[in-house]
Protein backbone atom coordinates (compact mmCIF):
# COMPACT_ATOMS: atom_id res chain seq x y z
CA UNK A 1 0.00 0.00 0.00
CA UNK A 2 1.15 3.52 -0.73
CA UNK A 3 2.10 5.69 2.22
CA UNK A 4 -0.94 7.32 3.77
CA UNK A 5 -1.77 10.94 2.96
CA UNK A 6 -0.55 13.70 5.26
CA UNK A 7 -3.88 14.41 6.91
CA UNK A 8 -4.29 10.78 7.85
CA UNK A 9 -0.91 10.70 9.53
CA UNK A 10 -1.76 13.96 11.24
CA UNK A 11 -4.96 12.65 12.81
CA UNK A 12 -3.33 9.32 13.57
CA UNK A 13 -0.46 11.01 15.34
CA UNK A 14 -2.77 13.10 17.50
CA UNK A 15 -4.79 10.04 18.44
CA UNK A 16 -1.65 8.16 19.44
CA UNK A 17 -0.60 11.10 21.59
CA UNK A 18 -3.96 11.25 23.34
CA UNK A 19 -3.93 7.50 23.76
CA UNK A 20 -0.65 7.60 25.59
CA UNK A 21 -1.14 10.73 27.64
CA UNK A 22 -2.82 8.93 30.56
CA UNK A 23 -0.13 6.26 30.33
CA UNK A 24 2.59 8.90 30.63
CA UNK A 25 0.82 10.33 33.65
CA UNK A 26 0.62 6.93 35.25
CA UNK A 27 4.31 6.24 34.66
CA UNK A 28 5.21 9.64 36.02
CA UNK A 29 3.26 9.08 39.19
CA UNK A 30 4.99 5.81 39.89
CA UNK A 31 7.88 8.05 40.92
CA UNK A 32 5.79 10.50 42.94
CA UNK A 33 6.41 10.76 46.67
CA UNK A 34 2.77 11.42 47.55
CA UNK A 35 0.50 8.45 48.12
CA UNK A 36 -2.56 9.97 46.53
CA UNK A 37 -1.46 10.99 43.00
CA UNK A 38 -2.90 14.41 43.59
CA UNK A 39 0.13 16.56 42.95
CA UNK A 40 3.82 16.09 42.53
CA UNK A 41 5.55 16.16 45.90
CA UNK A 42 8.93 14.72 45.04
CA UNK A 43 10.80 11.96 43.24
CA UNK A 44 11.13 8.57 44.86
CA UNK A 45 11.80 4.95 44.04
CA UNK A 46 10.03 3.80 47.21
CA UNK A 47 7.08 2.37 45.36
CA UNK A 48 9.33 0.20 43.24
CA UNK A 49 11.13 -0.96 46.35
CA UNK A 50 7.76 -1.71 47.94
CA UNK A 51 7.00 -3.99 45.00
CA UNK A 52 9.69 -6.39 46.15
CA UNK A 53 7.61 -7.21 49.21
CA UNK A 54 4.33 -7.58 47.36
CA UNK A 55 4.34 -11.29 46.64
CA UNK A 56 0.61 -11.08 45.89
CA UNK A 57 1.22 -8.73 42.96
CA UNK A 58 3.87 -10.94 41.38
CA UNK A 59 1.75 -14.04 41.88
CA UNK A 60 -1.16 -12.21 40.29
CA UNK A 61 1.01 -11.22 37.33
CA UNK A 62 2.15 -14.80 36.87
CA UNK A 63 -1.44 -16.06 36.95
CA UNK A 64 -2.58 -13.37 34.52
CA UNK A 65 0.19 -14.18 32.06
CA UNK A 66 -0.46 -17.91 32.26
CA UNK A 67 -4.19 -17.58 31.80
CA UNK A 68 -3.73 -14.90 29.15
CA UNK A 69 -1.33 -16.86 26.98
CA UNK A 70 -3.20 -20.14 27.29
CA UNK A 71 -6.63 -18.69 26.62
CA UNK A 72 -5.32 -16.57 23.72
CA UNK A 73 -3.71 -19.51 21.96
CA UNK A 74 -6.76 -21.74 22.31
CA UNK A 75 -9.31 -19.03 21.52
CA UNK A 76 -7.33 -17.91 18.47
CA UNK A 77 -7.23 -21.45 17.08
CA UNK A 78 -10.91 -22.10 17.73
CA UNK A 79 -11.94 -18.67 16.52
CA UNK A 80 -9.94 -18.86 13.31
CA UNK A 81 -11.43 -22.23 12.45
CA UNK A 82 -14.96 -20.91 12.99
CA UNK A 83 -14.20 -17.81 10.93
CA UNK A 84 -12.95 -19.99 8.08
CA UNK A 85 -16.09 -22.09 8.19
CA UNK A 86 -18.33 -19.03 8.20
CA UNK A 87 -16.50 -17.34 5.35
CA UNK A 88 -15.65 -20.23 3.09
CA UNK A 89 -18.34 -22.79 3.59
CA UNK A 90 -22.10 -23.04 3.37
CA UNK A 91 -24.00 -24.93 6.01
CA UNK A 92 -27.40 -24.94 7.66
CA UNK A 93 -27.69 -22.59 10.61
CA UNK A 94 -24.91 -20.38 9.31
CA UNK A 95 -26.74 -17.13 9.93
CA UNK A 96 -27.66 -18.28 13.43
CA UNK A 97 -24.05 -19.07 14.25
CA UNK A 98 -22.98 -15.65 13.00
CA UNK A 99 -25.38 -14.06 15.44
CA UNK A 100 -24.49 -16.42 18.24
CA UNK A 101 -20.87 -15.37 18.01
CA UNK A 102 -21.86 -11.83 18.98
CA UNK A 103 -23.94 -12.76 21.98
CA UNK A 104 -21.02 -13.19 24.42
CA UNK A 105 -19.93 -9.66 23.54
CA UNK A 106 -23.20 -8.06 24.58
CA UNK A 107 -23.90 -10.14 27.66
CA UNK A 108 -23.20 -8.16 30.83
CA UNK A 109 -20.12 -9.54 32.52
CA UNK A 110 -21.86 -10.30 35.76
CA UNK A 111 -24.32 -12.52 33.88
CA UNK A 112 -21.50 -14.39 32.17
CA UNK A 113 -19.66 -14.72 35.46
CA UNK A 114 -22.55 -15.86 37.60
CA UNK A 115 -23.87 -18.28 34.98
CA UNK A 116 -20.46 -19.89 34.53
CA UNK A 117 -20.03 -20.09 38.29
CA UNK A 118 -23.35 -21.87 38.64
CA UNK A 119 -22.37 -24.25 35.84
CA UNK A 120 -19.02 -25.04 37.46
CA UNK A 121 -20.68 -25.63 40.81
CA UNK A 122 -23.35 -27.90 39.33
CA UNK A 123 -20.74 -29.83 37.36
CA UNK A 124 -18.51 -30.11 40.41
CA UNK A 125 -15.55 -28.39 38.78
CA UNK A 126 -13.33 -26.83 41.46
CA UNK A 127 -12.69 -23.11 41.05
CA UNK A 128 -9.19 -22.08 40.16
CA UNK A 129 -6.86 -21.34 37.24
CA UNK A 130 -8.70 -23.87 35.10
CA UNK A 131 -12.10 -22.26 35.48
CA UNK A 132 -10.67 -18.80 34.79
CA UNK A 133 -9.01 -20.06 31.61
CA UNK A 134 -12.20 -21.78 30.48
CA UNK A 135 -14.14 -18.56 30.97
CA UNK A 136 -11.55 -16.45 29.14
CA UNK A 137 -11.47 -18.81 26.16
CA UNK A 138 -15.25 -18.66 25.99
CA UNK A 139 -15.47 -14.90 25.65
CA UNK A 140 -12.34 -14.53 23.55
CA UNK A 141 -13.52 -16.81 20.75
CA UNK A 142 -16.01 -14.15 19.70
CA UNK A 143 -13.37 -11.44 19.36
CA UNK A 144 -11.15 -13.62 17.23
CA UNK A 145 -13.99 -14.73 14.95
CA UNK A 146 -15.07 -11.18 14.23
CA UNK A 147 -11.57 -9.90 13.46
CA UNK A 148 -10.44 -12.89 11.37
CA UNK A 149 -13.75 -12.92 9.53
CA UNK A 150 -13.29 -9.30 8.49
CA UNK A 151 -9.88 -10.19 7.16
CA UNK A 152 -11.18 -13.17 5.21
CA UNK A 153 -13.92 -11.10 3.62
CA UNK A 154 -11.42 -8.83 1.94
CA UNK A 155 -8.97 -11.46 0.82
CA UNK A 156 -8.10 -12.19 -2.77
CA UNK A 157 -9.11 -15.78 -3.46
CA UNK A 158 -7.38 -16.08 -6.80
CA UNK A 159 -4.16 -17.33 -5.31
CA UNK A 160 -5.93 -20.05 -3.34
CA UNK A 161 -7.91 -21.19 -6.34
CA UNK A 162 -4.81 -21.13 -8.50
CA UNK A 163 -2.98 -23.32 -6.04
CA UNK A 164 -5.84 -25.82 -6.00
CA UNK A 165 -6.02 -25.93 -9.79
CA UNK A 166 -2.29 -26.48 -10.05
CA UNK A 167 -2.60 -29.65 -8.03
CA UNK A 168 -2.06 -28.66 -4.42
CA UNK A 169 -4.41 -30.39 -2.01
CA UNK A 170 -6.51 -28.18 0.21
CA UNK A 171 -4.28 -28.50 3.27
CA UNK A 172 -1.15 -27.43 1.35
CA UNK A 173 -3.01 -24.58 -0.31
CA UNK A 174 -4.19 -23.44 3.08
CA UNK A 175 -0.77 -23.70 4.65
CA UNK A 176 1.22 -21.99 1.92
CA UNK A 177 -1.27 -19.46 0.53
CA UNK A 178 -4.21 -18.75 2.82
CA UNK A 179 -2.48 -18.82 6.17
CA UNK A 180 0.32 -16.36 5.39
CA UNK A 181 -2.19 -13.97 3.85
CA UNK A 182 -4.53 -14.40 6.80
CA UNK A 183 -1.78 -13.93 9.30
CA UNK A 184 -2.27 -10.19 10.02
CA UNK A 185 -5.89 -10.89 10.86
CA UNK A 186 -5.03 -13.76 13.15
CA UNK A 187 -2.36 -11.69 14.86
CA UNK A 188 -4.77 -8.80 15.34
CA UNK A 189 -7.38 -11.13 16.79
CA UNK A 190 -4.87 -12.75 19.13
CA UNK A 191 -3.65 -9.36 20.30
CA UNK A 192 -7.18 -8.32 21.10
CA UNK A 193 -7.93 -11.59 22.87
CA UNK A 194 -4.86 -11.36 25.07
CA UNK A 195 -5.68 -7.78 26.00
CA UNK A 196 -9.24 -8.71 26.97
CA UNK A 197 -8.02 -11.61 29.06
CA UNK A 198 -5.28 -9.66 30.78
CA UNK A 199 -7.58 -6.83 31.82
CA UNK A 200 -10.71 -8.77 32.81
CA UNK A 201 -12.02 -8.28 36.31
CA UNK A 202 -15.69 -9.11 36.86
CA UNK A 203 -15.87 -12.53 35.25
CA UNK A 204 -12.49 -13.53 36.65
CA UNK A 205 -13.29 -12.53 40.21
CA UNK A 206 -16.51 -14.55 40.11
CA UNK A 207 -15.03 -17.80 38.77
CA UNK A 208 -11.71 -17.68 40.58
CA UNK A 209 -11.02 -19.85 43.57
CA UNK A 210 -8.85 -19.45 46.63
CA UNK A 211 -5.32 -18.56 45.65
CA UNK A 212 -6.00 -18.03 41.96
CA UNK A 213 -6.26 -14.25 41.82
CA UNK A 214 -5.18 -12.60 38.59
CA UNK A 215 -3.41 -9.24 38.55
CA UNK A 216 -6.55 -7.13 37.97
CA UNK A 217 -8.24 -8.83 40.92
CA UNK A 218 -5.30 -8.03 43.19
CA UNK A 219 -4.97 -4.52 41.85
CA UNK A 220 -8.67 -3.64 41.88
CA UNK A 221 -8.76 -3.25 45.63
CA UNK A 222 -5.63 -1.16 45.71
CA UNK A 223 -7.04 1.14 43.10
CA UNK A 224 -10.70 1.42 44.13
CA UNK A 225 -9.86 2.82 47.51
CA UNK A 226 -6.89 4.99 46.68
CA UNK A 227 -4.63 4.65 43.65
CA UNK A 228 -1.55 3.52 45.43
CA UNK A 229 1.53 4.36 43.42
CA UNK A 230 2.68 0.75 43.89
CA UNK A 231 0.10 -0.08 41.25
CA UNK A 232 1.60 2.56 38.97
CA UNK A 233 4.99 0.99 39.56
CA UNK A 234 3.95 -2.50 38.54
CA UNK A 235 2.01 -1.13 35.57
CA UNK A 236 5.14 0.67 34.42
CA UNK A 237 7.16 -2.51 34.79
CA UNK A 238 4.58 -4.40 32.71
CA UNK A 239 4.71 -1.72 30.04
CA UNK A 240 8.49 -1.73 29.87
CA UNK A 241 8.62 -5.52 29.99
CA UNK A 242 6.17 -6.07 27.16
CA UNK A 243 7.80 -3.34 25.09
CA UNK A 244 11.17 -5.06 25.36
CA UNK A 245 9.57 -8.40 24.54
CA UNK A 246 7.84 -7.12 21.43
CA UNK A 247 10.96 -5.27 20.35
CA UNK A 248 12.92 -8.50 20.65
CA UNK A 249 10.31 -10.50 18.77
CA UNK A 250 10.15 -7.89 16.03
CA UNK A 251 13.89 -7.99 15.68
CA UNK A 252 13.88 -11.76 15.28
CA UNK A 253 11.01 -11.69 12.78
CA UNK A 254 12.65 -8.96 10.73
CA UNK A 255 15.74 -10.99 9.97
CA UNK A 256 13.91 -13.69 8.05
CA UNK A 257 10.23 -13.02 7.95
CA UNK A 258 8.95 -10.99 5.02
CA UNK A 259 11.20 -12.51 2.37
CA UNK A 260 10.40 -16.04 3.42
CA UNK A 261 6.69 -15.37 3.49
CA UNK A 262 6.72 -13.95 0.00
CA UNK A 263 8.62 -16.94 -1.26
CA UNK A 264 6.11 -19.33 0.25
CA UNK A 265 3.16 -17.40 -1.10
CA UNK A 266 4.55 -17.31 -4.61
CA UNK A 267 5.82 -20.86 -4.53
CA UNK A 268 2.36 -22.32 -4.77
CA UNK A 269 1.44 -20.38 -7.88
CA UNK A 270 4.61 -21.01 -9.80
CA UNK A 271 5.98 -24.36 -11.06
CA UNK A 272 8.59 -25.48 -8.63
CA UNK A 273 12.01 -25.84 -10.19
CA UNK A 274 13.77 -27.82 -7.48
Amino acid at each position, binding site marked *: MKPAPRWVIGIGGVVYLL*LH*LPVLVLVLFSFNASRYSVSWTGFTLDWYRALAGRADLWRGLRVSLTVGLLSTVVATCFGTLIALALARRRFPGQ*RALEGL*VFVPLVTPEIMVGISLL*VLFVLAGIPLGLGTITIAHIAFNISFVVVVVRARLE*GMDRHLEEAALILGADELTAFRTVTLPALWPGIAAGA*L*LAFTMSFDDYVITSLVSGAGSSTLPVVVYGMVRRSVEPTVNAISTIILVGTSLLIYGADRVARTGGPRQLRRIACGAARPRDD
Partner: protein
Amino acid sequence: MTVRRRILGAMTRRPALGTASLLLPGGLWLVLFFVVPMLLMLGASVMHRGTYGGVEPGFTLEHYRRFLDPLYLQVLWRTAAWSALATAVCLLLGFPVAWMIAASRRHRALLLFLVVLPFWTSFLVRTFAMIFLLRDTGVINSILMSLGVIEEPIALLYTPFAVLSGLVYGFLPFMVLPIYASLEKLDPALLEAAEVLGARPAARFVGVVLPLAFPGILAGSLLVFVPAIGSFLTSDLLGGARQVMIGNLVQNQFTTARNWPFGAAASFAVMAVVLVAVLLSLRLRDRDRDPARRGSG
Protein backbone atom coordinates in the same frame (compact mmCIF):
# COMPACT_ATOMS: atom_id res chain seq x y z
CA MET B 1 -4.00 -33.36 -17.25
CA THR B 2 -5.74 -30.68 -19.30
CA VAL B 3 -6.44 -27.34 -17.69
CA ARG B 4 -10.16 -27.94 -17.92
CA ARG B 5 -9.88 -31.25 -16.09
CA ARG B 6 -7.84 -29.60 -13.38
CA ILE B 7 -10.30 -26.78 -12.87
CA LEU B 8 -13.19 -29.24 -12.72
CA GLY B 9 -11.24 -31.34 -10.30
CA ALA B 10 -10.52 -28.42 -8.03
CA MET B 11 -14.12 -27.27 -8.03
CA THR B 12 -15.60 -30.65 -7.21
CA ARG B 13 -12.99 -31.99 -4.84
CA ARG B 14 -14.22 -32.75 -1.38
CA PRO B 15 -12.72 -30.44 1.20
CA ALA B 16 -9.88 -32.00 3.15
CA LEU B 17 -11.17 -30.67 6.42
CA GLY B 18 -14.91 -31.14 6.79
CA THR B 19 -16.98 -28.15 7.80
CA ALA B 20 -17.94 -30.02 10.93
CA SER B 21 -14.36 -30.38 12.10
CA LEU B 22 -13.77 -26.67 11.52
CA LEU B 23 -16.74 -25.80 13.65
CA LEU B 24 -16.45 -28.50 16.25
CA PRO B 25 -13.75 -27.33 18.68
CA GLY B 26 -14.86 -23.71 19.01
CA GLY B 27 -18.52 -24.52 18.60
CA LEU B 28 -18.46 -27.16 21.29
CA TRP B 29 -16.69 -24.79 23.64
CA LEU B 30 -19.22 -22.05 23.06
CA VAL B 31 -22.11 -24.45 23.55
CA LEU B 32 -20.73 -25.92 26.77
CA PHE B 33 -19.42 -22.76 28.34
CA PHE B 34 -21.74 -20.13 27.03
CA VAL B 35 -24.99 -21.51 25.70
CA VAL B 36 -25.57 -23.93 28.56
CA PRO B 37 -24.90 -21.33 31.29
CA MET B 38 -27.18 -18.91 29.44
CA LEU B 39 -29.91 -21.54 29.34
CA LEU B 40 -29.56 -21.86 33.10
CA MET B 41 -30.00 -18.12 33.43
CA LEU B 42 -32.94 -18.20 31.04
CA GLY B 43 -34.56 -20.62 33.41
CA ALA B 44 -33.75 -18.34 36.29
CA SER B 45 -35.33 -15.38 34.52
CA VAL B 46 -38.75 -17.00 34.64
CA MET B 47 -38.59 -18.09 38.24
CA HIS B 48 -39.44 -16.21 41.40
CA ARG B 49 -36.80 -14.25 43.20
CA GLY B 50 -35.48 -15.56 46.46
CA THR B 51 -36.05 -13.13 49.30
CA TYR B 52 -32.36 -12.98 50.14
CA GLY B 53 -30.99 -13.66 46.69
CA GLY B 54 -30.99 -16.56 44.28
CA VAL B 55 -34.19 -18.01 42.90
CA GLU B 56 -37.24 -19.86 44.16
CA PRO B 57 -39.28 -22.37 42.21
CA GLY B 58 -42.30 -21.26 40.24
CA PHE B 59 -42.90 -19.94 36.74
CA THR B 60 -43.55 -16.27 36.11
CA LEU B 61 -43.15 -13.72 33.34
CA GLU B 62 -43.35 -10.77 35.71
CA HIS B 63 -39.69 -9.90 35.33
CA TYR B 64 -39.96 -9.49 31.58
CA ARG B 65 -43.15 -7.50 32.06
CA ARG B 66 -41.36 -5.29 34.56
CA PHE B 67 -38.59 -4.54 32.08
CA LEU B 68 -41.17 -3.06 29.71
CA ASP B 69 -41.73 -0.27 32.21
CA PRO B 70 -40.76 3.14 30.72
CA LEU B 71 -38.16 3.57 33.47
CA TYR B 72 -36.13 0.61 32.28
CA LEU B 73 -36.72 1.20 28.59
CA GLN B 74 -35.32 4.68 29.13
CA VAL B 75 -32.20 3.14 30.65
CA LEU B 76 -31.85 0.87 27.62
CA TRP B 77 -32.36 3.74 25.20
CA ARG B 78 -29.84 5.94 26.93
CA THR B 79 -27.24 3.15 26.98
CA ALA B 80 -27.75 2.47 23.27
CA ALA B 81 -27.41 6.17 22.45
CA TRP B 82 -24.11 6.42 24.33
CA SER B 83 -22.80 3.29 22.64
CA ALA B 84 -23.77 4.55 19.20
CA LEU B 85 -22.06 7.88 19.85
CA ALA B 86 -18.91 6.18 21.11
CA THR B 87 -18.91 3.93 18.04
CA ALA B 88 -19.18 6.89 15.69
CA VAL B 89 -16.31 8.74 17.35
CA CYS B 90 -14.20 5.57 17.44
CA LEU B 91 -14.76 5.20 13.72
CA LEU B 92 -13.77 8.79 12.97
CA LEU B 93 -10.61 8.53 15.03
CA GLY B 94 -9.82 4.88 14.44
CA PHE B 95 -10.00 4.79 10.67
CA PRO B 96 -7.06 7.17 10.13
CA VAL B 97 -5.04 5.22 12.66
CA ALA B 98 -5.78 1.90 10.96
CA TRP B 99 -4.96 3.41 7.59
CA MET B 100 -1.70 4.79 8.92
CA ILE B 101 -0.70 1.38 10.23
CA ALA B 102 -1.72 -0.51 7.09
CA ALA B 103 0.15 1.93 4.87
CA SER B 104 3.30 1.80 6.92
CA ARG B 105 5.89 -0.71 5.91
CA ARG B 106 8.72 -0.36 8.36
CA HIS B 107 6.89 0.62 11.50
CA ARG B 108 3.79 -1.50 11.20
CA ALA B 109 4.47 -3.86 14.09
CA LEU B 110 5.51 -0.98 16.31
CA LEU B 111 2.40 1.05 15.50
CA LEU B 112 0.13 -1.93 16.07
CA PHE B 113 1.79 -2.58 19.36
CA LEU B 114 1.47 1.06 20.43
CA VAL B 115 -2.28 0.89 19.87
CA VAL B 116 -2.75 -1.95 22.33
CA LEU B 117 0.06 -1.12 24.74
CA PRO B 118 -2.04 1.20 26.96
CA PHE B 119 -4.45 -1.66 27.48
CA TRP B 120 -1.92 -3.84 29.18
CA THR B 121 -2.14 -1.61 32.18
CA SER B 122 -5.15 -2.01 34.40
CA PHE B 123 -8.38 -0.38 33.18
CA LEU B 124 -8.87 1.26 36.55
CA VAL B 125 -5.37 2.70 36.66
CA ARG B 126 -5.79 4.18 33.16
CA THR B 127 -9.14 5.64 34.14
CA PHE B 128 -7.70 7.20 37.27
CA ALA B 129 -4.94 8.68 35.17
CA MET B 130 -7.65 10.24 32.99
CA ILE B 131 -9.36 11.57 36.10
CA PHE B 132 -6.10 13.12 37.08
CA LEU B 133 -5.86 14.84 33.72
CA LEU B 134 -9.45 16.05 33.62
CA ARG B 135 -10.00 17.18 37.22
CA ASP B 136 -10.70 20.78 38.18
CA THR B 137 -7.23 20.90 39.70
CA GLY B 138 -5.92 18.48 37.11
CA VAL B 139 -3.25 18.80 34.45
CA ILE B 140 -5.36 20.18 31.62
CA ASN B 141 -7.01 22.86 33.70
CA SER B 142 -3.73 23.79 35.36
CA ILE B 143 -2.03 24.26 32.01
CA LEU B 144 -4.92 26.27 30.59
CA MET B 145 -5.03 28.50 33.64
CA SER B 146 -1.30 29.08 33.78
CA LEU B 147 -1.39 30.02 30.09
CA GLY B 148 -4.08 32.53 30.91
CA VAL B 149 -6.60 30.98 28.54
CA ILE B 150 -9.19 30.61 31.29
CA GLU B 151 -9.81 32.16 34.70
CA GLU B 152 -11.81 29.45 36.42
CA PRO B 153 -11.26 25.75 35.85
CA ILE B 154 -13.57 24.24 33.25
CA ALA B 155 -15.63 21.30 34.42
CA LEU B 156 -14.15 18.53 32.31
CA LEU B 157 -14.62 15.63 34.67
CA TYR B 158 -18.05 14.19 35.44
CA THR B 159 -19.41 15.53 32.16
CA PRO B 160 -20.68 13.75 29.06
CA PHE B 161 -17.38 14.75 27.43
CA ALA B 162 -15.45 12.79 30.04
CA VAL B 163 -17.65 9.73 29.63
CA LEU B 164 -17.36 9.83 25.85
CA SER B 165 -13.59 10.24 26.08
CA GLY B 166 -13.40 7.29 28.40
CA LEU B 167 -15.53 5.09 26.19
CA VAL B 168 -13.62 5.98 23.03
CA TYR B 169 -10.34 5.49 24.84
CA GLY B 170 -11.45 2.10 26.05
CA PHE B 171 -12.76 0.80 22.74
CA LEU B 172 -10.43 2.29 20.15
CA PRO B 173 -8.33 -0.87 19.54
CA PHE B 174 -11.53 -2.80 18.86
CA MET B 175 -12.13 -0.46 15.95
CA VAL B 176 -8.54 -0.08 14.77
CA LEU B 177 -7.54 -3.75 14.63
CA PRO B 178 -10.35 -5.06 12.38
CA ILE B 179 -10.10 -2.07 10.03
CA TYR B 180 -6.36 -2.56 9.85
CA ALA B 181 -6.82 -6.25 9.09
CA SER B 182 -9.14 -5.27 6.24
CA LEU B 183 -7.08 -2.42 4.84
CA GLU B 184 -3.80 -4.26 4.96
CA LYS B 185 -4.81 -6.40 2.03
CA LEU B 186 -5.72 -3.40 -0.09
CA ASP B 187 -4.02 -3.82 -3.45
CA PRO B 188 -2.14 -0.60 -4.30
CA ALA B 189 -2.68 -1.39 -7.97
CA LEU B 190 -6.36 -0.55 -7.52
CA LEU B 191 -5.60 2.90 -6.22
CA GLU B 192 -3.04 3.51 -8.92
CA ALA B 193 -5.50 2.39 -11.57
CA ALA B 194 -8.08 4.79 -10.21
CA GLU B 195 -5.56 7.61 -10.21
CA VAL B 196 -4.49 6.84 -13.76
CA LEU B 197 -8.12 6.83 -14.83
CA GLY B 198 -8.48 10.38 -13.51
CA ALA B 199 -10.18 9.93 -10.16
CA ARG B 200 -9.42 12.64 -7.59
CA PRO B 201 -8.24 11.74 -4.07
CA ALA B 202 -11.69 12.05 -2.52
CA ALA B 203 -13.27 9.90 -5.20
CA ARG B 204 -10.47 7.36 -4.89
CA PHE B 205 -11.11 7.18 -1.17
CA VAL B 206 -14.87 6.82 -1.39
CA GLY B 207 -14.84 4.61 -4.45
CA VAL B 208 -11.94 2.28 -3.71
CA VAL B 209 -10.72 2.41 -0.13
CA LEU B 210 -14.02 2.62 1.70
CA PRO B 211 -15.81 -0.25 -0.01
CA LEU B 212 -12.84 -2.54 0.44
CA ALA B 213 -12.48 -1.54 4.06
CA PHE B 214 -16.18 -2.07 4.66
CA PRO B 215 -15.93 -5.51 6.27
CA GLY B 216 -13.40 -4.13 8.73
CA ILE B 217 -15.51 -1.06 9.43
CA LEU B 218 -18.54 -3.20 10.09
CA ALA B 219 -16.61 -5.60 12.28
CA GLY B 220 -15.02 -2.74 14.20
CA SER B 221 -18.34 -0.98 14.69
CA LEU B 222 -19.95 -4.11 16.02
CA LEU B 223 -16.98 -4.84 18.27
CA VAL B 224 -17.35 -1.38 19.80
CA PHE B 225 -21.12 -0.99 19.90
CA VAL B 226 -22.00 -4.38 21.29
CA PRO B 227 -19.70 -4.49 24.32
CA ALA B 228 -20.26 -0.78 24.98
CA ILE B 229 -23.90 -1.55 25.72
CA GLY B 230 -22.89 -3.74 28.63
CA SER B 231 -20.24 -1.40 30.03
CA PHE B 232 -20.90 0.91 32.94
CA LEU B 233 -17.69 1.46 34.88
CA THR B 234 -16.62 4.29 32.59
CA SER B 235 -19.91 6.07 33.16
CA ASP B 236 -19.51 5.54 36.91
CA LEU B 237 -15.91 6.64 37.24
CA LEU B 238 -15.75 9.42 34.65
CA GLY B 239 -19.39 10.46 34.71
CA GLY B 240 -19.66 10.52 38.47
CA ALA B 241 -22.16 7.66 38.53
CA ARG B 242 -24.90 10.16 37.77
CA GLN B 243 -26.56 7.83 35.32
CA VAL B 244 -27.54 4.23 35.40
CA MET B 245 -26.69 2.19 32.32
CA ILE B 246 -28.05 -1.24 31.54
CA GLY B 247 -24.80 -2.65 32.89
CA ASN B 248 -25.38 -0.90 36.25
CA LEU B 249 -28.97 -2.13 36.32
CA VAL B 250 -28.03 -5.77 35.78
CA GLN B 251 -25.13 -5.52 38.23
CA ASN B 252 -27.45 -4.09 40.87
CA GLN B 253 -29.99 -6.85 40.44
CA PHE B 254 -27.44 -9.53 41.23
CA THR B 255 -26.11 -7.61 44.20
CA THR B 256 -27.93 -4.96 46.23
CA ALA B 257 -31.40 -5.53 44.79
CA ARG B 258 -31.18 -9.29 45.38
CA ASN B 259 -33.32 -9.81 42.32
CA TRP B 260 -31.52 -12.36 40.16
CA PRO B 261 -34.46 -13.24 37.89
CA PHE B 262 -35.01 -9.59 36.98
CA GLY B 263 -31.31 -9.17 36.27
CA ALA B 264 -31.39 -12.18 33.99
CA ALA B 265 -34.58 -11.01 32.28
CA ALA B 266 -33.17 -7.52 31.68
CA SER B 267 -30.00 -9.05 30.23
CA PHE B 268 -31.92 -11.27 27.85
CA ALA B 269 -34.14 -8.43 26.72
CA VAL B 270 -31.07 -6.34 25.91
CA MET B 271 -29.31 -9.27 24.24
CA ALA B 272 -32.35 -9.88 22.05
CA VAL B 273 -32.53 -6.26 20.92
CA VAL B 274 -28.82 -6.09 20.15
CA LEU B 275 -28.85 -9.44 18.39
CA VAL B 276 -31.57 -8.22 16.03
CA ALA B 277 -29.52 -5.11 15.27
CA VAL B 278 -26.42 -7.21 14.63
CA LEU B 279 -28.20 -9.65 12.33
CA LEU B 280 -29.66 -6.77 10.34
CA SER B 281 -26.24 -5.24 9.85
CA LEU B 282 -24.79 -8.61 8.83
CA ARG B 283 -27.48 -8.83 6.20
CA LEU B 284 -26.24 -5.46 5.01
CA ARG B 285 -22.77 -6.88 4.63
CA ASP B 286 -23.99 -9.93 2.72
CA ARG B 287 -25.91 -7.78 0.30
CA ASP B 288 -22.77 -5.72 -0.20
CA ARG B 289 -20.79 -8.84 -0.92
CA ASP B 290 -22.41 -10.16 -4.09
CA PRO B 291 -20.96 -13.09 -6.12
CA ALA B 292 -19.40 -10.85 -8.80
CA ARG B 293 -17.08 -9.41 -6.16
CA ARG B 294 -15.65 -12.72 -5.07
CA GLY B 295 -11.89 -12.64 -5.35
CA SER B 296 -12.08 -8.88 -5.67
CA GLY B 297 -9.66 -8.02 -8.40
